[in-house]
Every structure is written in C-alpha cells, then in structure tokens.
C-alpha cells in the first residue's frame, strides 16, 4: 500500500505568549518553539501503522520553508520512507486552498492508496486543507477520523461528531482521511533513527516544478488583532492563603457546596 502523509510545522502557541509583529499580519516567532502540528502527528502515526501492517511505502510532504525539513526528518526517523518539501517561500501568502493545490500538484504524480492529514492546524485553524485536497484529487474523504479499520477492500472510518457520537462510514480506497487527535499513540523517534534520518535526502520542489500562476488563493489575511475581551474573570491575587480564603468565601456565599 502506498501512503502519503501531509504534515505542517507550526509554532507551539497553546501555552505561549503570542504577540503580533510589526507587519500586523504575523506573530513574533523568535521566542516560540516549533514542532509538527498536533493532529498531524496522529495522522503520521496512523500512516506508519498502516504501512507496517500492509507494507508498501510512506511519503511525507510538507509545504513549508527550510525549517520544515527538520519536521520532515522527524517523520523519516519515525518510519516514513521518503520526504518532500514544497517551498512555501516560492508561492507567497498561503491560504488553505493554495496549500491544497500545491500538495495536489505534487501528489498527483505519486502513487497513493491512502492519504492522511491532520484535521486542523493549530496556527491558522482553517481545518480545510485535507478535504480540499481530496476534492482536487477526485478522491473520497472522511474528516475528523478517530478510528480506521481495513477489512479487505472496505475501509471502516469512524468520524467524531459533536457530543461524542461517532459516524461510521464504509469507504473504498483510494481515499483521504483527516485525522483527529487521540486516534493512536504517536511514537517517539529514537536517537539512532534521528541520526540516520539526518543523512536522508529530502526532495525539494519549488516554482521551477510548479507553475505559481496556476495556483490561486481564495482569501488573504488583512490583519491580526487581540480578541475583544468581554467580561474577564476577576483575578484573585495575594498569597496562596489569601487566595484560598477568597475561594472559601465565594463558595460559601454562593452556596456552592
């Protein structure tokens, strides 16, 4: 089985202080850590598990700048066979639609029985690249997948709906799956494997191979801004004991116990 996993390198912003830079369209990145997008790590793991079960090849692709090669090498160390970087710097501002077209331009020439992507990127939050890519490649998709079982020619994909309900689909390959976090336990790459991956070649594709004029975007970022805050929490300050006494007062006064 030939499998493709699409991954993205993103700033880890969940627990970081995020500031807007002077352009007003990007964030200050020098203090942030970058890593593989969270749901992409699960998508990659699912792809590796499938490859291990059915044998075949696994190619990882990332649309990114040079730094994305570090993330691709982690994927190689975990078990991917080949890695491709599409040079983000060659194509200007990227929205989800443009990213999907770039991926399509490369993937259409690769053999693929299954494609895995994360369900959402934690930076731009669009959650649209996977489903758009499937459409551009003319293949069926299932998004927000939390379980996949392959039974002969049928793939049972389980999508996570609101309220904990699962939608069970019977699909055929080739197909694309956008993977939700928690579907598996992403492995860590061993140090030996990371060292070995450092020597592997990463194929780089840019404007020489993909005609930028054929790639269009649907949207452009106007500006970033700090979300308007409504009624913010009353911050309890003081020593821990004082804070505790305040909480004690609140629960007593409101009869919460």
């Amino acid at each position, binding site marked *: 089985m030939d499998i493709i996993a699409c991954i993205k390198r993103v700033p880890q912003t969940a627990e970081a202080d995020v500031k807007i830079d002077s352009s007003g369209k990007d964030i200050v990145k020098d203090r942030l850590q970058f890593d593989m997008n969270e749901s992409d790590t699960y998508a990659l793991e699912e792809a590796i598990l499938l490859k291990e079960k059915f044998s075949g090849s696994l190619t990882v692709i990332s649309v990114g700048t040079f730094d994305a090669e570090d993330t691709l090498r982690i994927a190689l160390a975990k078990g991917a066979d080949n890695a491709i970087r599409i040079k983000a710097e060659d194509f200007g501002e990227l929205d989800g639609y443009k990213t999907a077209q770039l991926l399509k331009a490369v993937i259409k020439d690769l053999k693929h029985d299954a494609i895995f992507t994360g369900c959402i990127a934690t930076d731009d939050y669009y959650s649209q690249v996977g489903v758009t890519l499937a459409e551009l490649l003319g293949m069926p998709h299932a998004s927000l997948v939390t379980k996949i079982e392959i039974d002969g020619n049928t793939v049972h994909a389980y999508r996570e709906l*609101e309220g*904990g309900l699962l939608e*069970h689909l019977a699909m055929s390959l080739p197909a694309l799956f956008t993977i939700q976090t928690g579907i598996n336990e992403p492995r860590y790459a061993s140090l030996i494997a990371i060292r070995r991956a450092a020597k592997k070649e990463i194929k780089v594709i840019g404007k020489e191979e993909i005609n930028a004029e054929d790639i269009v975007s649907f*949207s452009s970022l106007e500006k970033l801004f700090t979300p308007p805050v409504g009624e913010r*929490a009353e911050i*309890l300050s003081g020593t821990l004991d004082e804070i*505790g006494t305040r*909480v004690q007062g609140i629960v007593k006064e409101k009869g919460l116990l």
Partner: protein
Amino acid sequence: MAEIFALVEHRQGAVRDITYELLTCGRKLATAQNTKLTALVFASPADKIVESIQERADRIIVMEHGVFENFNAEIYQLALRDILEKEKPHVTLIGHTAFGYDLCPALGAEMGIPFATDCLDIEFTGSRLRVTRSVYDGKLDAHVLLKEHTSYLVTLRSGCFTPEEVSLATEVVKQESPVTEQPEYRKFVDYIEAAVGEVDITKADIIVSVGRGIKEQANLPVMEEFATAIGGVLSCSRPVVDAGWLPKDRQVGSSGKTVKPKLYIALGISGAFQHIVGMKGADTIIAVNKDPNAPIFNEADYGIVEDLFKVVPVLKEKILDAKKLKG
C-alpha cells in the same frame, strides 16, 4: 440582489442548534444586502425539520429523499451544487460542525467558489466579504478578506450568534433531489453512541476539570482526590483523553459532554473554544492557569494565575473547611 442561503443541519431527526445561529447570521447579512434569506433543508422525513424553522427564513427549499436521512458529505455536496448552480446565492452559510467541516471545502473546491472556514463573524466590505476568525490556539483573531467573486461559502463557528425569534412569511419550495443513492465509495453505515462510563459528569454539581497543565498521568490521583474530597467529580479537556489518561466520558467540550454544574474548577485548561462550549453553562467557574493570557480567563468568573500544583492543596483545605462549617 443575490440571496443569502443557510444550510439546515439536523441529526437523528432533530434540528441542530447551529441551524438557528446560521439563520440569525443569515438574516443579518440579508438585511445588510437588502436581499432575502433562504434555508436549505435536505431531509427525510422533512416535515418536522421544516416546521422547526418556519418563519425564520423568507424561503425554505426542501429536498426530501431517503438519501438525506443521515448526513453524508458526498450526497450533500451533490445536492448543494445542484441548487447553487441554479440559484447562484451570494453567500451560503454552513455550520462549522463535524458536518460542515466535511462538506464546505470540497464543495468550494469543486465549484471554484471562495470559501472561509470556522468564522466568528462575517461582513460585507464593498463587494468583498470580510470574515473574522480565531487563530493561534485562540490567542489572536484575524480579519480575512475573500477573493472577489459572485458567490461565497462560509462555515460559522457554534455559539457566535444568539438565535433570535422572528416571524417572517416563509415560502416553502420543494425540489427534486439530484441524487438518489449513496455512492459506493462512501456509505453511511450507522451512528455509534459513546460508551457510558461509571461516572456521569453531566449530573454533578461540582466538577474539577484538568487539562494539559497537569503535565503527567501521575498527577491525576491528587486531582481526583481533590474532586472527591470537595464532593465533586473529575473531568478533563481533550488533551487528557488524547493522552489516554482519562476515558472519553470524562471529556468536557464539543466532542465530549456539555456540563452545567454549580461549581466548575478548571485546572491547567487553556480554554480552547471546543472546551468552552461544553462548560460555559456552569454557574460559577474558577480557573487556575499559569498563563495570564489563557483564553479560559475570558470565560471564568474568578481566575487564579498560579501553578496549579501549589493552588490545589490550599483550595482543598479551604473548601473542606467551608464544608465543615456548613455541616
């Protein structure tokens, strides 16, 4: 003037709340553009669904066929394409839900219609559409302009518009479904209900909820003990379930449970919107987080900017004291 369309979302025979939010947003846009609002119902049976949204749109287009009993993005895509090609609406609103998520990007890519996903708000600026989105784990918002086009698709995040009661004269129009069977390559099989666990967090008056900030599984027993000691139950946000530390039935949020306790203590939860929608109905919310900018503080009543491991023992002692005094 081209109309505003809103896709009615339903599951297991009932209209989903997002539908009313889409219709409210749609009416705002229709008013701004001096045009009409049309609701699209793909269902089987359709009567009850249509009845639920009567008077909330100027027109309801109904496609009633067995294939629409359960959502299938492929079928919805075919049906929507058929209607959009004929009607050419200006904006089509879809919920940013598990259904909309699966549908909108494929429809937009197929038809070449600019689309924006997970939007908090939408406005026209001249002939272009500007959307507001939440980015970088909810730490920032963004204004995004869509490429100029005659038609747009937008998915709207849940909870951004408060449904309003309106009484419009609604015209109901029936159309034939262009699709009559599920495609071989993607068939809906069934829904699988979440497993029922030993603790029903939706029934609890006091909830202690833990997030990424608890760092490791070894810290869970202390948190569970805290919850039990003050007469509550332990729940969590998604990362804790993803890591396999607590079962899915303890997860609070859009893909987990919605809870409405008297007291909700959030420990080390940053406050992603998916979590907020599951707990914002709590009477009193106390959040503990080291990050003063954590979005959870926008929802909480009281905030404690501290290391949760230092705070928990103190809270436990003080709340137990309060209980003793009461008892």
